[in-house]
C-alpha cells in the first residue's frame, strides 16, 4: 500500500513533537527558531499537497486503516485551508511571542490542533472524526488561555472549554445514536445502510438534532454561537484568527461528511433546518456587529455572519452550491485570519509603546491608522473590503458563485436576505475604513513589526489570487464537492 499521501500529516505531527521536545532544552534566545521550523513544516505540507495533484481530480487517492482514513480532493482541500491558516498564524506569532519562554508549547499545540483538523478532514469513520475533533479542540482550549496573565484570556478559555465540552458530549451522543441505528461507524457504510433499510423518522430527527447542535457549536451558527464573541475577544488575537478561520472550518468539513455523505437520506429535514439557521445566523451576526466597540468582537460577529452565508450551501445542496461554499471557506480563511492578524498587529504596536494600554483592540485606537501604520492600515482595508464582498477580491468571487448557485436552485428569498445582509455588513466594515483613513491619528507613528506584515502579505496574495484568477480554486472546490457525491 502506498502511504505517501499521508506525508503532510506526518510532517505536521513530527514537527509538533520535535518542537515540544527540543523546547525543553533550548535557551530562550534561540526558541524563536522553533517557530521558523513550524512555519517551514507547514509550508512543506502545503507544497506537498499542491504538488500531489489530488486536488485536481475527483477520484479518491487512497483509503487507509480499515477504511477509516480517506485521502481525496475534499480532504486535501480542507487540509490546505487549515495549513494555510496555521502558517499565517505561526508567522505572526514568531514576533508576538519572541520573548515568551513557553513558546515551544505554543507552537506544539498549534501544530497538534492543525493535525487534529487534518484528521477530521480525512476521516471516513465516526470514531476517527471524533478523535480528530477532540484533538483539535483540546489544543485550542489551552491556546485560548495562553496569555496567562490576562484575565480576559482565561475567561475566554474557560468559557470555550466548558461550552465546547458540553457540545462534544452532545455530538458524541448523536454519533452513538447513529451507530446504534445503523450498526456501523463507517460513514459510507451508514449511507449504504440507510439507502437499503431506511431510517425511522424519530431516530433520524433525534440524530439530526444532536449532530447539528454539536457541529453548529464549532461553526458558530446562531443560536450555538454564544461562546464565539467572548472567546474571540478574550483569546490571544493569533488564536482568535486560528479559531475563526481554521477551527470553524473543521465544523464545516465534519458537517459535509456526516450530513451530506452519511445522512443524505434526510436532506429535506436538513435543508429546512439549515434554511432557518442560515438566515438567523447571518442576520443576527451582521446586526449585532454594528454596535461593537472592540474590533475583535466585531470580527467575531462578522465571522458568525459569514458562517451563515456558508451554511447556505447546506440549504441549496447543488454541486455548484457545494463548490461555492468550499470556495467561500477557502476565501474566508484568508480574509478572516488576515483581519485578525491586522488587529493583532495594532494591539502589539500599542503594547510595545505602552504596556498598560487597556482595550487596545477598540475601534478608537484605529483612528488615523493610515498615517500611523500605513501598511497595516492598507492590509486591513483589503481584508474588510474582501469580507464585504467588493471585487476584485476573493470575498466577491465566493459570494458571486454562492449567491448565483442559490438563484440557480430557485432560492430567491434566501438570496434576497443574504444580499440585504451584505449591505448591512458594508456599514460596519466601512466604519473601520472610516476610522483608519478619515479620522485624525490617535497618536504618533508606530513601528510596524515585519513578521506581522509578512503574515498579512501571505493572506493578501491569496485573496487577490482567488479574486483575480479563481479558475483553479473553483476547479478544486468543484472536485471536492464531487467527492461527497455532488
Amino acid at each position, binding site marked *: 500500500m502506498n502511504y505517501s499521501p499521508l506525508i503532510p500529516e506526518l510532517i505536521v505531527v513530527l514537527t509538533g513533537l520535535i518542537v515540544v521536545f527540543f523546547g525543553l532544552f533550548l535557551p530562550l534566545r534561540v526558541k524563536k527558531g522553533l517557530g521558523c521550523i513550524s512555519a517551514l513544516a507547514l509550508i512543506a505540507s502545503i507544497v506537498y499537497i499542491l504538488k500531489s495533484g489530488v486536488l485536481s481530480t475527483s477520484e479518491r487517492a487512497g483509503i487507509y486503516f480499515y477504511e477509516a482514513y480517506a485521502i481525496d480532493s475534499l480532504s486535501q482541500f480542507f487540509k490546505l485551508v487549515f495549513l494555510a491558516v496555521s502558517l499565517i498564524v505561526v508567522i505572526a506569532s514568531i514576533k508576538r511571542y519572541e520573548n515568551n519562554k513557553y513558546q515551544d508549547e505554543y507552537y506544539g499545540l498549534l501544530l497538534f490542533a492543525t493535525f487534529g483538523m487534518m484528521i477530521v478532514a480525512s476521516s471516513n469513520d465516526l470514531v476517527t472524526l471524533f478523535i480528530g475533533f477532540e484533538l483539535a479542540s483540546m489544543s485550542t482550549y489551552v491556546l485560548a488561555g495562553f496569555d496567562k496573565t490576562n484575565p480576559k484570556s482565561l475567561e475566554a478559555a474557560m468559557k470555550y472549554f466548558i461550552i465546547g465540552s458540553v457540545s462534544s458530549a452532545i455530538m458524541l451522543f448523536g454519533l452513538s445514536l447513529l451507530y446504534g441505528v445503523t450498526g456501523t461507524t463507517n460513514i459510507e457504510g451508514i449511507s449504504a445502510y440507510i439507502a437499503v433499510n431506511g431510517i425511522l423518522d424519530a431516530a433520524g430527527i433525534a440524530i439530526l438534532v444532536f449532530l447539528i447542535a454539536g457541529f453548529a457549536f464549532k461553526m458558530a451558527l446562531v443560536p450555538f454561537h454564544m461562546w464565539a464573541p467572548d472567546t474571540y475577544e478574550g483569546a490571544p488575537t493569533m488564536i482568535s484568527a486560528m479559531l475563526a478561520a481554521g477551527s470553524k472550518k473543521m465544523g464545516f468539513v465534519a458537517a459535509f461528511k456526516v450530513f451530506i455523505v452519511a445522512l443524505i437520506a434526510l436532506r429535506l429535514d436538513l435543508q429546512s433546518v439549515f434554511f432557518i439557521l442560515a438566515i438567523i445566523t447571518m442576520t443576527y451576526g451582521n446586526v449585532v456587529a454594528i454596535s461593537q466597540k472592540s474590533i475583535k468582537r466585531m470580527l467575531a460577529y462578522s465571522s458568525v455572519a459569514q458562517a451563515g452565508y456558508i451554511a447556505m450551501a447546506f440549504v441549496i445542496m447543488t454541486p455548484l452550491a457545494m463548490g461555492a461554499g468550499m470556495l467561500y471557506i477557502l476565501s474566508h480563511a484568508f480574509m478572516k485570519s488576515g483581519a485578525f492578524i491586522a488587529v493583532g498587529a495594532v494591539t502589539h504596536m500599542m503594547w510595545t509603546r505602552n504596556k498598560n494600554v487597556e482595550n487596545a483592540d477598540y475601534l478608537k485606537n484605529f483612528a488615523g491608522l493610515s498615517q500611523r501604520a500605513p501598511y497595516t492600515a492598507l492590509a486591513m482595508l483589503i481584508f474588510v*473590503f474582501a469580507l464585504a464582498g*467588493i*471585487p*476584485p477580491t476573493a470575498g*466577491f468571487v465566493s459570494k*458571486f*458563485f454562492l*449567491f*448565483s448557485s442559490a*438563484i*440557480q436552485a430557485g432560492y*430567491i428569498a434566501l*438570496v*434576497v436576505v443574504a*444580499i*440585504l445582509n*451584505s*449591505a448591512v455588513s*458594508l*456599514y460596519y466594515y*466601512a466604519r473601520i*475604513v*472610516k476610522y483608519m*483613513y*478619515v479620522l485624525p491619528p490617535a497618536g504618533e507613528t508606530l513601528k510596524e513589526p515585519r513578521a506581522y506584515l509578512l503574515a498579512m502579505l501571505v493572506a493578501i496574495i491569496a485573496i487577490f489570487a482567488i479574486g483575480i*484568477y*479563481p*479558475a483553479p480554486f*473553483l*476547479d478544486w472546490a*468543484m472536485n471536492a464537492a464531487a467527492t461527497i457525491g455532488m
Partner: protein
Amino acid sequence: MSLPLISLMIVIPLIGAIIAFISKTRNQARYAAIIASIIPLLITVKMYFQLDPSKMWVVESYDWIPLAGIKYAVGVDGISMPLILLANIVIPLTILFAFGETKQASKFYGLLLLEQVGVLGVFSSLDFFMFYIFWEVTLIPMYFLISIWGGPRKNYAAIKFFIYTHVASLVMLLGIFSLYFTALAKTGVPSFDIAYLIGMYSGFDPAIKDIIFFALLFGFLVKMPAVPFHTWLPDAHVEAPTAGSVVLAALLLKMGGYGLFRVMLPMLPNTTNTSMIITVIAIIAVVSIVYGAFLALAQKDLKKMVAYSSISHMGYVTLGFVSLVPLSVTGAMYQQFSHGLITCILFMSCGIIQHGAHTRIINDLGGLVKKMPKLTFLMLGGFLASLGLPGMSGFIAEFTILAGAVTTLYVYVLIAVFGGIAVTAAYHLWAIQRAMFGVFNEKLGDVHDMARYEMISMAILLLLVIYFGIKPDLVWDVMHAGANMVLAGANI
C-alpha cells in the same frame, strides 16, 4: 500583431494610480496623474478613426474562468466609444482643475485615476462578470473621495452613497444571475457574454422575463439616478469635493445610461408586456425631468441646485431611450455626452465660488462678477448650455430627443416640454442672476478669481460644448450607427 489597445487604455491609469499613491511629493503625483490620464485619450483618438461604429469591435477576448463561461473580453462600438472619449476628456481636465489640491494630494490623484479605470472598464466590458466588477470598483474611490475630502456631513453622505448604490448593484447582479441561469438551462452552454445573453432573452419563459428586466432596470435607474431612486445623489454631490462631484455627475451617472442602451434597449421590445413597461419608464423619465427641475428651482445651495439639475437632465436620457425611435435614442446618447461636459463646468463653478467666497448659498452671494469676471464668463457659458441654448451641445441633444419621441410618446413629450423646459431656464437664469450679478455683497470680503489651471480646464470644456453644439457629427455619426445597430438587432 496589433497592440491590445483597450486593455492598455485601462491599465495605464491603473499604473498611474499606483505611481501616484507611492509618490513622495505632490508634484510627482500630479504630473504622473495628468500623464497617465492623457495617454488613454490619445489611445481613444487612435481607436476612434479605426472604428466601424455599426458593429462591435472586439479587440481582446480570453478565457478567464472557463468552468462558469466567464471571459476577459473588451471591445468598443458606437454606443461605448463616445462615452470612453468622454471619460478620457473629463478625467484629465478634472485632474488639471484640481491641480492645486494640497490635502493628501498623492492619494487624491490616485483615486481619480482609479475612477478612470473603473469607468473605462464598465464602458468596454463585453462580459457581465467583468462589467459587474468594474461597476463595483467605481464605488470605492468615490467613497474615499467623499469621506476624506468632503464637506461637513461627509461621513453620512459617503456611507449613504456607498450602501444605496451597492444594494442597487446587488439587485442588478440578481438579474444577471437569472439571465445567466435561464440561458444555461436552455442551452447547457455557460456564458456571461453580454450580447449572447441578451440575444437569448427573447426566448425565455414569460414568468422570468419581467423579473430579470426589472432587476436590471433597477440597478441602472438608481445609478442614473431617476426619481424616486435619486435621494442618494444630492447628499453625495453636496458633500463631495469638486473633483469628486465632477466625476460623479459626468461619468458615474453615465454608467446607468450606458446600461440602458447596452442592456435594456435590446431587451425592451422582447418583454412580455412591452407597452406597460414603456409607460412605466416614460412616467419615471418625465417625473425626473419635471420634478428634478422644480427641486432645482427650490434650492438655496448652488451646488445642490446643480445636483438636482443633473437628475432632470438624466431624465431626458431615459425618455429618449424609451421612445425606441432612432433619432431620440441617438439624442439620448448625445445627451449623455453633452451633459457629461456641461455638468463639469457647473460643478467646477460651484467649487470655485465655494473656495473664493466661502459659501454657496445663493442668497448670500451677489455681484460676484465684479470680483470674478473670468469665472462669471465661463460659468454663464455653462449655465446657458445647460438650459439648452441653441448653438451649444445640450440643445441638440434635448431637441432631437423631444423631436423623435413626439412620434411615440406624444403626451409625455408634451408634459416634459411644458413642465420642464421653462422651469429649467428659470432656475438657471435666476440662480446666476442672484449669485453673480446685482450688488456685491460686502460681507463676502476679499474674493479672488479662479487660478489659471482652473480657467484652462473650464475653457477647454466650454469650447468643446460649443464645438459639439455647432458640429455634432463627429460624435453623432458614431452614436447614430450604434443606435441603429441596437434597434435593428432588436427588430424595432
